[in-house]
């Protein structure tokens, strides 16, 4: 009897610990936690949506649905009733808003104007071409007035030419100059700061270089436009003041902090014991840095260059201000050049909403996104592997 009494008392004193309550005891908290989950999921969803929505606007180009020829063929005004509203809108190159606001009379008037203009226009052998097809986008073509096949990006003209090769070359040219300028400089600086300089120097040099990344790119562009262009012209004596070299050097300056910090991070994460071991067998400080630390951190340096590449090829304002923006097919860095980014920035405002030019700009934006995404992924992955390897060794 005594035994059972004791047991009962024990039960009572410990309580029922909220039996049959569980999380239902705190509905508010349950709700808040669901809220947290919801917000986080939507934020993450937006991250994944970015690609989707850029691609969505570019889809007519990718799927081959866009047709630039449709707008050019003249349709007599009295055939207005035979066209569907969508066809009419495309024909008159109007945005849906503009189209909805106009009554039928106005639309007919516009068609008449277009018909008149069509009569006056010089006939062009390329009129019926759909220039948004991939063969015109990627391959050279002998356009009217040109004697041989050429790569031309010329969306504002009678025959809209959308060859993206000049833009790709323009982007690669400026990026290459930027890398040639910034890679040696920032890696040398990273070696100096992480291995050779005394700690006091490191303390102020590192933030100073990182401060460079705090300069907005439009400011760097202005500096390139006003100061760097003049400075480089007096050295190299080229003709066009704004060119791939000016843009590239300014771009290089902008990515110096990116390459520097990642390379410095990789070099610093090489265990100190490596250096001490090298010094112990009689290497000089430089030999230790060059023969021991740099090889160990080499993947990190490589990652730094890849991430720098991604940053440079996606940079807009510097190139827009300092490259001259002429889409010339040329290998020379002293020629004015036009990149993918500056093309989007300069032309999207004047492209007809939802039209093929608009789609084309989203298409090159998608390409740009793809390229930077892959290069970022590679860079991050290499860096991740390196860090886990070095940290693994340290243990």
């Amino acid at each position: 009897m005594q035994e059972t009494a004791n047991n009962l008392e024990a039960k009572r004193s410990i309580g029922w610990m909220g039996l049959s309550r569980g999380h239902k005891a705190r509905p508010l908290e349950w709700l808040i936690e669901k809220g947290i989950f919801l917000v986080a999921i939507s934020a993450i969803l937006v991250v994944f949506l970015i690609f989707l929505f850029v691609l969505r606007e570019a889809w007519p180009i990718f799927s081959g649905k866009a047709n630039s020829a449709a707008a050019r063929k003249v349709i007599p005004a009295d055939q207005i009733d035979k066209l569907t509203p969508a066809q009419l809108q495309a024909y008159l190159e109007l945005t849906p808003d503009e189209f909805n606001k106009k009554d039928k009379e106005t639309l007919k008037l516009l068609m008449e104007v277009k018909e008149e203009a069509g009569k006056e226009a010089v006939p062009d052998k390329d009129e019926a071409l759909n220039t948004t097809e991939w063969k015109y986008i990627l391959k050279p073509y002998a356009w009217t007035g040109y004697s041989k096949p050429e790569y031309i990006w010329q969306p504002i003209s009678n025959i809209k030419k959308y060859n993206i090769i000049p833009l790709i070359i323009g982007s690669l040219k400026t990026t290459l100059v930027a890398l040639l300028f910034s890679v040696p400089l920032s890696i040398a600086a990273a070696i100096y700061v992480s291995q050779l300089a005394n700690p006091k120097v490191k303390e102020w040099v590192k933030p100073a270089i990182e401060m460079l990344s705090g300069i907005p790119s439009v400011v760097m562009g202005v500096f390139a436009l006003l100061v760097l262009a003049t400075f480089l012209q007096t050295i190299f004596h080229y003709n066009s003041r704004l060119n791939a070299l000016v843009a590239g050097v300014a771009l290089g300056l902008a990515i110096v902090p990116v390459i520097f910090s990642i390379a410095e991070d990789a070099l610093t994460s090489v265990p100190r014991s490596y250096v001490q071991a090298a010094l112990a067998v009689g290497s000089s400080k430089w030999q230790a840095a060059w023969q021991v630390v740099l090889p160990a951190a080499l993947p990190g340096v490589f990652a730094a260059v890849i991430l720098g590449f991604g940053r440079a090829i996606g940079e807009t304002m510097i190139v827009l201000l300092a490259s001259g923006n002429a889409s010339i097919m040329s290998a020379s860095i002293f020629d004015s050049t036009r990149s993918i980014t500056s093309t989007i920035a300069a032309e999207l405002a004047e492209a007809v909403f939802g039209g093929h030019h608009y789609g084309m700009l989203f298409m090159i934006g998608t390409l740009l996104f793809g390229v930077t995404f892959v290069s970022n992924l590679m860079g991050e992955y290499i860096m991740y592997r390196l860090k886990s390897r070095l940290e693994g060794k340290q243990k």
Partner: protein
Amino acid sequence: MSHSNQQFKRKTFDFSSWFFTVLTGAATYLIVSILAVILLNVLISGLPRFSWRFLTGGTERDMFSVANAGVWPMIVGTSIRVFVMTLMVVPVGVITAIYLTEYASSISFLTRVIRGAVNNLAGVPSIVFGLFGLGFFISYVGKGLDHVFYAGGESHWGKPAVIWAALTLAVMTLPVVIVATEESLRSIQPGLREASLALGATKLQTIFKIVVPQAMPGILTGAILAIGRAAGEVAPILFTGVAYYMADLPHSLNDLFMDLGFHTFILASQSPNIEQTKPILYSTVLTLLLLTFGLNFIAVLVRGRMRAARRSVH
């Protein structure tokens, strides 16, 4: 300098170390001096026209005339877009970071994919965010709102506006806030969470009473860095809401706005006479730099204080 002499080493002059230290040092100081040149250039050319009147004055339609130049509308526009962005990005970023560190399983494949995507987002070109803003916020969300509320009528939301520019920037700076918050959440010693839970606190109580207050400096740094980055960006707002010229300040969230960075771009690229525009261009640049550097400087200070505080804890 004879190295062939393999006697017991006396302290010989180590030429290669000296040479390469000088070489790499020169590269380092070249970078630093270019930074100095840029800053001095802006400061010297920008200061003469930089005045209270310039900061608080409006501008005329002819923005390139030096006489009446002012940047007040641009300061207001930039501040509004950054403010609205902050209101969006900080709560969402912090909550997402809380979810990722406190709730999501740290070893699940999905969490790793999400982390990778967030990190990668930080490297996506800003112009692509501009395209996204146009493609998603304006032509999808905005037009959708118009369709629902003003069927067939004028567009109220499906057009460039300060809200869309701010949201675009919020998406762009989301990784900055998430990464900074996650980092500071993870640096809190797990013992504190355990202690709180062992006292019978719920997870939510532990997060809001113990974890988040501890992570506050990190969250603040992330927010300031995000603001600093967004304030100077031009590419994402080009098609999402910036105006070349407005006679009036923006009144509502679906108005256009003028912007310091964009104004700088206009002055530099559209001026009929660049030599004449130069002084006000430089003063505008100076204003922009003061704004962004000021914010970055605050972030550095906060981070420094946070680290000092943390050192004293351990």
